């Protein structure tokens, strides 16, 4: 489902954030991406979601070689992916409901369908009662969960999460991870970047370790 071959990412300032990465994640699999701060976890996720382009190497996602995707096709490509950001990227001028509805609005869903799916997604992250709230009135953890709801509302084939539990207490973190496990159980391919070694090592999923932009070890096979 996700395949990286010899991928190097050098930022315009010359910094090499990723060096010769080889990685593959099968359809329906789930893995964790770990590593120190600055190791290149976010960069890797950005390459997979075409926010950045690799300097060298090849990336294949859902059967599509990202190199050959034209600018016009990028939006349609991104619709297959749900992305949860390190900083949740919520829009503060609209309600929680409207934030979560955005991917569906963009894809031209009808209003009743949008309402149904948004409520289902909010229900999954336990925020159904906050649908009319403004994002600024939510706690950081709640905002993070709104971001998760937005990432899954259109039932993407792939879910990418960058530190989704960074701001959550241990209990809530575990709940969120359980949520990802459940998405994975229904067939979604999931890749989660996280520092929280304690938590993720208890979940029985393979871990990919990055160190200074290099792949170090894999604790289990994906």
């Amino acid at each position, binding site marked *: 489902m996700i395949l990286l071959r010899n991928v190097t990412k050098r930022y315009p300032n010359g910094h090499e954030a990723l060096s010769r990465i080889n990685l593959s994640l099968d359809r329906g699999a789930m893995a964790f991406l770990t590593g120190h701060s600055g190791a290149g976890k976010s960069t890797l996720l950005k390459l997979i979601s075409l926010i950045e382009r690799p300097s060298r190497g090849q990336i294949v996602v859902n059967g*599509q070689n990202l190199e050959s995707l034209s600018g016009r*096709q990028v*939006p*349609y490509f*991104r*619709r297959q992916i749900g992305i949860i950001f390190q900083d949740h990227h919520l*829009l503060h001028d609209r309600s929680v409901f409207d934030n979560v509805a*955005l991917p569906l609005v*963009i894809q*031209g869903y009808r209003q009743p369908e949008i309402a149904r799916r948004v409520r289902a997604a909010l229900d999954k992250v336990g925020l159904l009662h906050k649908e009319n709230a403004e994002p600024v009135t939510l706690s950081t953890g709640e905002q993070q969960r709104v971001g998760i709801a937005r990432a899954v509302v259109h039932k993407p084939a792939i879910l990418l999460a960058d530190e989704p539990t960074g701001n959550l207490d241990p209990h809530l973190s575990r709940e969120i991870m359980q949520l990802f496990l459940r998405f994975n159980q229904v067939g979604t391919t999931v890749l989660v970047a996280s520092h929280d070694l304690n938590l993720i090592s208890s979940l029985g999923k393979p871990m990919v370790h990055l160190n200074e932009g290099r792949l170090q070890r894999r604790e289990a096979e994906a």
Partner: protein
Amino acid sequence: MKRRRALTLPPVHARFQAYGINHLRALVFSLGKLYRAPFSSALTLLVIAVALTLPTLFHVVLNNLQQVSPQWSQTAQISVFLQDSVADEQLPALATRLAQRPDVAVALPVTRAEALEEFRAHSGFAEALDTLGENPLPPLILVTPALEHGSTTTLEGLVNALNNMPEVSRALMDLQWVQRLFSIMEMLQRATLVLSLLLGLGVLLVVGNTIRLDVQNRREEIEVAKLVGATDAFIRRPFLYGGLWLGLGGAMLAVVIVTITILLLSGPVQALSQLYGGEWRLGGLGFQGTLALLGLGALLGLAGSWITVNQHLRHIEPR
């Protein structure tokens, strides 16, 4: 290649459906935005309206002048002064001959004595004339041209033909003012063109600037929308409608301003026309003119936002 496209692009009917829904949403959204920022919207609309009003008023005035000018040149007369050798008795025959010309409507003979009477009555030089003792005036024929339209060239042709007649000493057209009018109208026409181009450009810039600020204010929203798979067309759409509304709204306001101005002017103009014994009415924009102005406003608004949005959207990419 085929496989990839099939994977990335949704089926055609779904795209059409999404297209319709998206258009409707963008339209409602962009209207709502105008409504939510009434002061700045009103200000922008007013600027656009003023920029559209000026050339439109020029245009209307020009149209009116063009409509009345044939009447004016028809009322113009040519004074045909005859040679001293022409006797008063010859005058009626000569006048009849002139009146037979197709480009002459009326030819009125004026004898020396009649000319003197006329001169005495109107010039205020009566006493000066009396001291001369002898009548210095030549006989003349007043010719009213029969011209289809007030084009100066045929008038000049008639005057030249009259001048070439042996009995004529001089044919004078008191038409210089008509010629001036035509020159002024030509100047006005060019001025209107230049003004229209400049102010049209102004509307483009005003709309462009408004939309540019709007794009910048919504940078974050655009980034997020791109991240969750919004196409450029989707992102562009509300801005395009925004520009369209600005242009159309400004044009509507301009129609109102122009109409009011014409109403204000029509009283004095009618009074003026009666002074000259005419029956001209100040014409307004008319149905077609109104439609054209509205269409032009909408088009300028759309173009202004299109140019700006395309320019700025490229630089906004998710990070």
